[in-house]
C-alpha cells in the first residue's frame, strides 16, 4: 500500500465506501429508516428519520449466522475475525520480510515491540524476569490495540473489546498466567501463603487482610481487567455514535439555525474519534501494564 499515492488511496476508499454502503443495509438491515430500494442509496444516505441515540442494544446486534446457537456470528464476531485476520496478516508479512536493516513498516513494528518490552515489561519486572513474559504481553498488547481500534474504523464502528467476552478471555489468560507463575515460583502452599498472608503484619490483622487479599488475587484482578477495558470501549462507542447520530439528525432533519448545531456535533465527533484512538492505545497499555504488575507480584519473594 505504501506506493499508492493520495489520489489512488482516495479513489479506493470512495469505491469501498460506496460498495460497503450499498451492501450494509442489506446485511445489517435498514434500521427502520425505510428500504433503500425505492429511494436509492444516496437519498438513503442523507435521510434522517428522527433522532436515533445509541443504546446498549448496539452491543447485541442480530445474528448473521447460526443465530441462537453457541456458534452464533454477529457483527461483533465478524469485526473480531476481521481484526484478527488483519493483525495476523500484517504482522506475518512484516515478519516474513523482516531484515536486519529495517524498512519503515518493520521499524514501526519494532517500535511497538520495544515499547512493550522496555517501557512496560522490563520497567515493571526487571530485565531478567521480563524475558519469559515479553512475548505473551506483546501479543496481548497488539491484540488489544487492534480490537480497540475497530471502534473508530469506518464501517466497523464497534470496538471488538466492547462486548465483554473477549476482555474476559484475555483477563482469564493473564489470570491463569500469573497464578501459574506464582505456583511455579513459590509452590502451591508458598504462593498462597505469600499472597494471602503478606509477611510483616501482626497476626490479628490477617482476619481482615486475608479475605481482602483473597478477593484481590482470585476475583478482583481479572474482573477489573476485563471490566475496565469493556466499559471504556462501550463508553467510547456510545459517545461516538451519539455524536454521529446527532450530526445526521441536525444536518438532514432539523431546519434553520438548529442545523448549525450539527457542525458542533460533527466537530465533537472528530475530536472524540481522535480521543478514542488515544483511549484505545491507553487501555491496551493499562491492560498489559497491570498484567505485568500482577505477574511480578506473583513472582515477588516479599511484598
Amino acid at each position, binding site marked *: 500500500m505504501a506506493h499508492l499515492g493520495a489520489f489512488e488511496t482516495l479513489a479506493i476508499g470512495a469505491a469501498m465506501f460506496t460498495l460497503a454502503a450499498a451492501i450494509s443495509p442489506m446485511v445489517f438491515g435498514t434500521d427502520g429508516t425505510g428500504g433503500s430500494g425505492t429511494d436509492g442509496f444516496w437519498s438513503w444516505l442523507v435521510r434522517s428519520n428522527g433522532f436515533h441515540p445509541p443504546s446498549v442494544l448496539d452491543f447485541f446486534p442480530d445474528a448473521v449466522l447460526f443465530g441462537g446457537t453457541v456458534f452464533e*456470528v454477529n457483527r*461483533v464476531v465478524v469485526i473480531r475475525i476481521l481484526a484478527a485476520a488483519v*493483525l495476523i496478516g500484517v504482522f506475518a508479512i512484516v*515478519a516474513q520480510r523482516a531484515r536486519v536493516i529495517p524498512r519503515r513498516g518493520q521499524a514501526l513494528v519494532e517500535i511497538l515491540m520495544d515499547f512493550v518490552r522496555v517501557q512496560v515489561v522490563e520497567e515493571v519486572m526487571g530485565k531478567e524476569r521480563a524475558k519469559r513474559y515479553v512475548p505473551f504481553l506483546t501479543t496481548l498488547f497488539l491484540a488489544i490495540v487492534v480490537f480497540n481500534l475497530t471502534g473508530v474504523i469506518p464501517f466497523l464502528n464497534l470496538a471488538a473489546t466492547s462486548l465483554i*467476552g473477549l476482555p474476559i*478471555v484475555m483477563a482469564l489468560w493473564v489470570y491463569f498466567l500469573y497464578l501459574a507463575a506464582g505456583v511455579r515460583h513459590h509452590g502451591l502452599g508458598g504462593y498462597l501463603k505469600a499472597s494471602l498472608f503478606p509477611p510483616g503484619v501482626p497476626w490479628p490483622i490477617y482476619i481482615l487482610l486475608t479475605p481482602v487479599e483473597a478477593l484481590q488475587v482470585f476475583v478482583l484482578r481479572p474482573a477489573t481487567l476485563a471490566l475496565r477495558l469493556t466499559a471504556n470501549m462501550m463508553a467510547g462507542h456510545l459517545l461516538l455514535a451519539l455524536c454521529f447520530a446527532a450530526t445526521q439528525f441536525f444536518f438532514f432533519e432539523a431546519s434553520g439555525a438548529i442545523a448549525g448545531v450539527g457542525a458542533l456535533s460533527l466537530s465533537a465527533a472528530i475530536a472524540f474519534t481522535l480521543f478514542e484512538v488515544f483511549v484505545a492505545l491507553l487501555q491496551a497499555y493499562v491492560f498489559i501494564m497491570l498484567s505485568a504488575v500482577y505477574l511480578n507480584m506473583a513472582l515477588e519473594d516479599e511484598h
Partner: protein
Amino acid sequence: MFALTVLATAGEGSSPNPLLPANFDLLWSLVVFALIVIAFQRSILPKLNKILDERAETIEGGIARAEAAQAEAAAALKEYTAQLTEARAEAARLRDDARTEAAQILSEARAGAVKDAEHLTEIAVKQIEAGRQQAMIALRSDVGALATELAGRIVREALADDARQQHVIDAFLDELDSTVKAEG
C-alpha cells in the same frame, strides 16, 4: 447468589446485561484470541526476534571489530613510538660513539705526529751531531797540519817584529778562510 440471579434475569430481558458474556461471545473470543496468540507465539514474534538478535549481533560484532581495530592501531602506534625512541637513542649513541672515536683518532694522530716530529728532531740532532763530529775529526786532523805549517813559516821567516808577526798571522788566517770557503 441473589445478585447473580438478578443479573441473569436482567440478561434474559429486553436489554441484555453487557457485563454477562453470551456463550457464543466467549467461544468466538477464545477462538479468535487463540489464533492470534498461536500465530504470534509460534511464528511472528520468533521471526522478528531472530532478526532483532541478528541485528544486535551485527552491531555488537561491528563494535567488537572497531574496538579490535582501535586496539591494533594503538598497539601499532605504541610500537612505532617505541621504535622511534629506540632509533633516536641508537642515533644518539652512534653520534656519541663517532664523536669519541673521532676524538680518539685525533688524539692518536696528534700523539703519532708528535712522536714522528720528535723522531725527526732526534734524527736531525743526531745528523747534526754526526756532522759536527765529522767536522771536528776533519778539523782535528787539519789543525795539526796547519799548526805545523804555521809554526814552520814563523820559524822560517825569523820573526823580527810584531808587525811582521801580525802580517803572518793575518795571511795565515786568510788562507785558512779561503780553504774553508773552497771546501764548503
